């Protein structure tokens, strides 16, 4: 699954550590999400969507 997390984070001038703090996860987890090595759980995906005030499907794009 692809995502626009890095772009959205850059728009807010947040570091990975700051985003991790906002989401309550580790910086390593934010990095794994951004480089698309890890797909988040549904609760985390919704948390990210709420944080950036976007629908989930605008942030996470299925490969198909």
């Amino acid at each position, binding site marked *: 699954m692809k995502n626009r997390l890095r772009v959205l984070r850059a728009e807010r001038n947040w570091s990975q550590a700051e985003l991790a703090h906002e989401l309550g*996860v580790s910086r390593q987890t934010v990095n794994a999400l951004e480089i698309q090595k*890890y797909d988040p759980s549904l609760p985390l995906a919704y948390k990210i969507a709420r944080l950036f005030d976007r629908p989930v499907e605008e942030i996470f794009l299925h490969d198909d």
Partner: protein
Amino acid sequence: MGIFCSPRYAVALGAWFALYAVLLVVSLTLIDHNVVTAMPQRVLVGLAPMIAGFGILGVIMREYRAGDELQQRITAEAIMFAFGATAVITFSYGFLQRTAGAPDLSYFWVWAILGTTWGIGTFIARRRYK
């Protein structure tokens, strides 16, 4: 901060290990000098260090649950690797004992193998998400 790396975890684990060390010394002293000879008191004194073992188990489980979802996944993958690898190694050694006369080893070696393969499993699992 990675799971099982936080200072809070290190302090809690260290405290329980300190208690383990104290209980172990007291237990071994009482047993080795035959201060406690009656059963089942002797068995209970011999098992006393494991009171700290339960504390260590509790600290480890709390730390695991405090991790985020990726950290928990990496830990689970590492434990799966360690579990399987330990089975392969111990079974292999068991067959070597039957076929090649390999010497008997203490059961404590199982934990040494489990701990080592857990470390290797963590290294492998972390690399998958980098």
